[in-house]
């Protein structure tokens, strides 16, 4: 970057303020528009990386997720911050997490597909919990009798799990491994 130091500082501060005021991750394309004249994507990205370094020894970090860049608290301090919060984050049942896992790894899937894998019925409120959370959505319909809805995961799920893409999900264990002898794995 061939900018004078004070311009770099000003740009970094503006990026910082913008990211700190947005409740959602901000894509680079959007950040560029704040500058007059508009900065190119590469410059913005480099400034963000410098900013990321500036913050690296703090209780807060700048990260890149599916929806763009955002600031978030580090896990070590979140525990302490949670101490002063009256509300506890919701806990999700195993049924919900298994359903989410099936949708995440096998998408797009119908409710019937989920039931086949889990061996039990999947209730409407269960799916609605995940939909209301913004983690899954109907992405289409399977063209079979009844036209069942096909579910897929959303960008918000990735954002909420700190991931940039579905490929960053923990890989599935190969079939049959770690099964039968859980102690051994």
């Amino acid at each position, binding site marked *: 970057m061939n900018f004078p130091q004070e311009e770099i500082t000003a740009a970094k501060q503006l990026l910082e303020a913008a990211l*700190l005021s947005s409740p959602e991750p901000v894509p680079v394309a959007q950040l560029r528009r704040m500058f007059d004249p508009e900065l190119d994507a590469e410059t913005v990205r480099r400034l963000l990386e410098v900013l990321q370094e500036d913050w690296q020894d703090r209780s807060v970090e700048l990260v890149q997720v599916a929806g763009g860049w955002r600031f978030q608290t580090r896990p070590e301090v979140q525990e302490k911050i949670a101490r002063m919060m009256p509300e506890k984050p919701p806990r999700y049942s195993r049924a919900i997490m298994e359903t989410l896992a099936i949708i995440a790894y096998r998408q797009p899937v119908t409710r019937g597909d989920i039931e086949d894998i889990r*061996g039990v019925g999947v209730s409407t409120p269960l799916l609605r919990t995940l939909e209301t959370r913004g983690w899954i959505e109907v992405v289409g319909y399977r063209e079979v009798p009844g036209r069942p809805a096909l579910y897929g995961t959303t960008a918000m799920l990735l954002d909420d799990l700190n991931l940039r893409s579905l490929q960053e999900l923990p890989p599935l264990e190969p079939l049959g491994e770690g099964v039968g002898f859980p102690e051994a794995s």
Partner: protein
Amino acid sequence: MNDAADLLEIPLAEPIARVNGEPFVGMPQDLYIPPEALEVFLDSFEGPLDLLLYLIRKNSLDILDIPMAELTRQYMEYVEVMRHRRLELAAEYLVMAAVLIEIKSRMLLPRPVMTPADEEADPRAELMRRLLEYEQIKQAAQRLEELPRNGREFAVLQVWMDETVGQRLPQVSTQDLLEAWKQVLARARINQHHRVTREQLSVREHMTRILRRLREKNFVEFHELFETGVTIPVAVVNFIAILELVKESLIQVSQTEACAPLYLSLVEPVAELTS
């Protein structure tokens, strides 16, 4: 206790299991679940596949070589205990029991000599496939659960910004409203009986308007609600709105004597434990 323990013993004659390559010696005895704990025990399973996986694990059985007869026997004993305890039996468990029995019976029948590659013929194959797939998903769910999560392990930062400059309020169009309503309908599967027509809507609008007026002024004379110059359809709709409000016990109409003016007022609050 002995009876129950016997009922749920783990009768494995041959040492099939090997842990870390070593022949399995001591059989875990923790399969026995006291009946009073069964309810809790069952609650901790997500379904029949989960229970089967538990049985297989607790016996350290190789999932790829399940001794089907024993497993079926054990599973059926669980189902029997559940029935005994008059617990509500999930249909899925019974279906799984039927599957196990079917596999067991097919394995007990004399079979023609089978080539080892003839996997389709092994009645356990489908069950194994499902168990393996379910186990895989269970582990994946566990890992998802362990991932750092927004609101739990970390929180997204957001500082305050003057709303008038920065944050723009969401805009809504009539189309958005219609779409939202359609979603409500689609989900509630409200059929045409509950359809709200244009006419009903205008009745609703008048209902709100009347309520608002009555809130400002305790009593309103009936005719005041009919502004001069309104068209007949509007007057009719307004009248229907009044009737609706009366029907829904939201307002009351009173008259001191015959032919005296009609007064409308909000329904008096029901006597509550006040003062």
